[in-house]
C-alpha cells in the first residue's frame, strides 16, 4: 500500500521581513481546518472590508434629477475605505464587492416614481430598482426602494457611489434620513478577490 499523505509546504515571500504565525485557538478539543483543493488567496477578516453609511437627516433633492446620496453617517467601516465627505467607497483591496443601496423618497409631495443605481467611477453601472405608481389613488406612492449588485473594483482607482432619482409632481422631494430603521444608505462587503 502506498503513502497517500499530501504535504504542506510553507514558503517564504520573495520580499518582506515579517513572519507568519498559525495560532491555535483556546480549546480542549482537537479541531481540523481543511484547506480547499484549489489555488487562491485565503480570505480572513483582515482582507475582507465591510462598510455601511447612511443619511441621518433628510436630504433635499430635485425632482427628476439623479442625486448622489449624501451618506455622511458611518455605522461601520472596517478598513476606512469609505469617504463620508464625497460619499464614495474606494477600496485598496481588489475584488468582487457586493454593493447595496437604499433610498427613501420623501418630502412635501407624493413620490410617484423612483429608482436608484450603483455608479462606478462616475457613471451609472447598475440600475437596481425602478418603481412607478398610479397617483390617482393617493395611498399608492413610492416609499423605500433598495437593491444590490456585484461589482469588481480594482483596488486602486475604482470607486462606487449610490444615486437616487425621484419624481414628485409637486412639492419638494427628499431622501429620507433616519437610523433604525435605515432608509437611505450605501453598504458593501468584499465577497472574494
Amino acid at each position, binding site marked *: 500500500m502506498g503513502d497517500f499523505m499530501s504535504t504542506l509546504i510553507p514558503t517564504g515571500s520573495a520580499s518582506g521581513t515579517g513572519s507568519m504565525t498559525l495560532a491555535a485557538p483556546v480549546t480542549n478539543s482537537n479541531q481540523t481546518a481543511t484547506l480547499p483543493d484549489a489555488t487562491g488567496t485565503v480570505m480572513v477578516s483582515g482582507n475582507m472590508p465591510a462598510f455601511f453609511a447612511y443619511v441621518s437627516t433628510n436630504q433635499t433633492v*430635485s425632482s*427628476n*434629477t*439623479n*442625486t*448622489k446620496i*449624501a451618506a455622511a453617517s458611518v455605522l461601520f467601516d472596517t478598513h476606512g475605505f469609505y469617504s463620508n465627505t464625497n460619499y464614495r467607497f474606494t477600496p485598496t483591496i481588489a475584488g468582487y464587492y457586493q454593493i447595496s443601496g437604499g433610498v427613501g423618497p420623501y418630502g412635501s409631495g407624493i413620490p410617484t416614481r423612483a429608482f436608484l443605481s450603483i455608479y462606478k467611477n462616475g457613471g451609472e453601472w447598475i440600475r437596481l430598482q425602478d418603481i412607478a405608481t398610479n397617483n390617482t389613488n393617493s395611498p399608492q406612492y413610492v416609499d423605500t426602494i433598495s437593491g444590490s449588485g456585484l461589482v469588481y473594483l480594482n483596488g486602486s482607482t475604482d470607486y462606487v457611489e449610490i444615486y437616487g*432619482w425621484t*419624481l414628485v409632481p409637486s412639492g419638494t422631494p427628499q431622501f429620507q434620513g433616519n437610523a433604525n430603521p435605515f432608509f437611505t444608505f450605501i453598504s458593501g462587503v468584499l465577497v472574494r478577490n
Partner: protein
Amino acid sequence: MTLYEKIKSLYPELTDRDFSTVIRLQNDSDGKGDYIKSWNHPTLAKPTDEELA
C-alpha cells in the same frame, strides 16, 4: 426654481419619462447643484446657459 423646473418651463412638451431616458439631470452632492449630465433628445436642443440663467 430647480433646473428641472427651468427646463420644463422652456419645453413644456417634455415628459417625465424624457428625464429618465434621453435627458439626464444630475447632482453629485458636492455643493455645485444640479446640472445637465446628458441631453440626447431627438428634436429639442439642449438649452443654453443664458436660457437657464
